[in-house]
């Protein structure tokens, strides 16, 4: 072997690389996807997969086919991208002058797209439509506004509910809780009676999925105590009395033994897996996962959902307004056609197709359609609608929400299991967040 590196050569290499770095700059570049035959070719990027076995993907394909057949000005093609990767892909593509014409965005990620310059406001297009249809929305459309501009239209809603396995509660002689304190006690009783094999009440505290499962509990709990995660001025405000009470409540589940350290390995997926396997008795989870969970052997009607009980008997915890939206790509050359598609996508007919595939509609009038009214769980769907309409709470999801939720769940782990002081733990994350804001 004849390798020999002396200091001089390393320095030369280093100098050459740094020189190259100095000249490294990127020019912008344009896209050229105009089509000649007068038919606008529209790319739709979404997390749904029309080719698989998911009924929602099939509904999407039907809607796209319906749109393509309904007019001759535009033709939509669907590209399915994994839900966890789609935001990065879209932002990267848009920053090189390309990207989709229509993009599906999960509401909490909307601000990130605005910051990344991947979508454009649709106020001008949506004005007339909103004047006509806006009041049909179950929740305020403000959730899709960033800095006062409408950036997307929600087409799917979801609520977070108290899930419990009725069979497990019966087995361990526990009645469904009607307050949060009862939930703590019931969870602790189940876990103890099962010899710590069944998690009584699961709140996922894993860093995975950027702490989403934890945030989906911490946010409504804080709201239930009268606070917010992000204040109206955009700064973090969760180290308030309300935030401290919410965190204390989460900790009390751990202290009482309603969950153990196993929740450190749980994100939303693992919580739902646990419900399917019968190792999680109660949890707060999304309506969009109910159907798939019930299809598991031994679950079925044993999985019961109700609005999440509040602090006092008879009260209910607010549920976050979140869901999927459609937005207009920043670089589209056919905004009119894009808007036409979004409008088609939100028509009562299209919404009914999605409802038939298990999607909770955003428009009130869709709940009268046969797809909802004749569903096997129609009563439950209406209950969810009413919960959302009555207790839906619009949260602010800033562009750096992912980073905030990651830092918060790390702090939560220490506060719940490591004896870190709750006000101090929250204050530290809050200060760090507010300092980094610019």
């Amino acid at each position: 072997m004849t390798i020999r590196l002396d200091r001089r050569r390393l320095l030369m290499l280093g100098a050459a690389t740094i020189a190259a770095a100095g000249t490294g700059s990127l020019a912008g570049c344009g896209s050229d996807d105009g089509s000649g035959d007068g038919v606008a070719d529209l790319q739709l990027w979404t997390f749904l997969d029309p080719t698989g076995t998911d009924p929602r993907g099939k509904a999407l394909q039907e809607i796209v086919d319906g749109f393509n057949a309904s007019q001759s000005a535009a033709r939509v093609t669907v590209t399915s991208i994994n839900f966890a990767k789609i935001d990065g892909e879209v932002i990267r593509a848009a920053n090189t002058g390309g990207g989709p014409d229509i993009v599906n965005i999960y509401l909490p990620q909307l601000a990130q797209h605005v910051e990344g310059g991947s979508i454009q406001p649709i106020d001008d297009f949506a004005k007339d439509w909103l004047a006509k249809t806006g009041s049909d929305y179950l929740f305020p459309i403000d959730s899709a506004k960033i800095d006062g501009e409408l950036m997307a239209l929600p087409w799917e809603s979801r609520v977070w509910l108290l899930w419990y396995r009725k069979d497990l509660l019966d087995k361990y002689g526990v009645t469904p809780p009607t307050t949060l304190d009862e939930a703590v006690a019931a969870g602790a009783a189940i876990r103890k009676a099962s010899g710590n094999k069944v998690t009584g009440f699961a709140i996922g505290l894993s860093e995975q999925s950027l702490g989403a499962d934890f945030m989906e509990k911490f946010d409504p709990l804080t709201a239930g105590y009268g606070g917010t995660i992000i204040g109206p001025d955009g700064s973090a405000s969760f180290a308030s009395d309300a935030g401290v009470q919410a965190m204390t409540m989460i900790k009390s589940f751990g202290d009482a033994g309603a969950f153990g350290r196993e929740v450190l390995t749980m994100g939303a997926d693992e919580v739902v897996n646990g419900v399917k396997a019968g190792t999680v008795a109660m949890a707060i989870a999304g309506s969009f996962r109910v159907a798939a969970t019930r299809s598991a052997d031994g679950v079925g009607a044993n999985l019961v959902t109700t609005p999440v009980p509040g602090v006092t008997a008879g009260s209910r915890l607010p549920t976050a307004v979140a869901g999927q939206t459609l937005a207009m790509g920043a670089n589209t050359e056919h905004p009119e056609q894009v808007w036409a598609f979004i409008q088609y996508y939100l028509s009562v007919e299209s919404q009914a197709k999605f409802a038939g595939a298990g999607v909770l509609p955003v428009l009130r009038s869709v709940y009268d359609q046969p797809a909802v009214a004749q569903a096997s769980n129609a009563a439950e769907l209406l209950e969810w609608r009413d919960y959302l309409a009555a207790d839906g709470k619009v949260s602010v999801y800033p562009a750096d929400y992912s980073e905030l939720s990651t830092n918060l769940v790390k702090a939560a782990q220490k506060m719940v299991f490591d004896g870190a002081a709750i006000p101090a733990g929250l204050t530290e994350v809050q200060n760090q967040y507010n300092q980094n804001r610019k």
Partner: protein
Amino acid sequence: MSGTSTVPTAAARRRRLGPVALYVPALVLVALVSVFPIAYALRLSVYRTRALRTVEFVGWDNFVTVLGPDGWADIARTFVYVLASLVLAVPLGLALAVLLNKQVRFLRVFRVVILLPWVVSQTVAALLWKWLLNGQYGPLHSLFGGDGPLSSPWGSMASLIVVNVWLSYPLATILCLAALQTVPAEQVEASRVDGCTPRQSFFLVVVPAIRSTLLILVIMLTLLYFNMVTLVYTLTGGGPFSGTQVLSLNAFLQSFQFFKIGIGAAYSVVLFALNIVFGVAYIRVLKGKNDG
């Protein structure tokens, strides 16, 4: 093969240039694909960024963040992860190569089965192992009981290392297996005649003979481990209690989840530097006595 025709002929000038000309295709390719992006990453690391745009020059600020108090803990964990994985994967890979180089029944079956983990993607490996290690509904839950190993920082790191070794030892096995084919039997037999035990002849004859393969193997594995993202992200997400938070995960989170590509680039530059330091160190340590 454009280069081979220029192997030295009688002309002295061509003889001098010939060896260098053989590198030209490789140099053109890596220059085209790698040099410019590296330069770009270096530049990004000294800028504050917003989404994917540079906003202002901030000098070392990003590195101050990366190398802050938490940063050193991340670096320490990265070292534990990389070194422990190396210490397990290289000997395991080499030992299996030796076993798979013997004449045994079902050799083909053993060779294929033992190499299989290599072709499982990091995501799938992480998902399957996470399921196996789950203390509640996992197929081995009776072994762990209760929380499962992933619920404590040390258990989580140990699991991460085991899964990492599971994924990567076949690379070591295959390289060593190929290298063992080039060791002439006569050298080994001669050493046995000279009174060496099998172990002695292995370490005194075989290992030195495959030294250059071991060198590149250790370099490859080190690069792989330092830069490992998907496995860590999917198996542990860096937790719990940040117990498996390594530099590469931070680089990924900052660049692709938080869209702070300036800080992400700074993490990457630190990783790049560590890769170079380790690479140079290996070359110095593992080069033979006779090498100039």
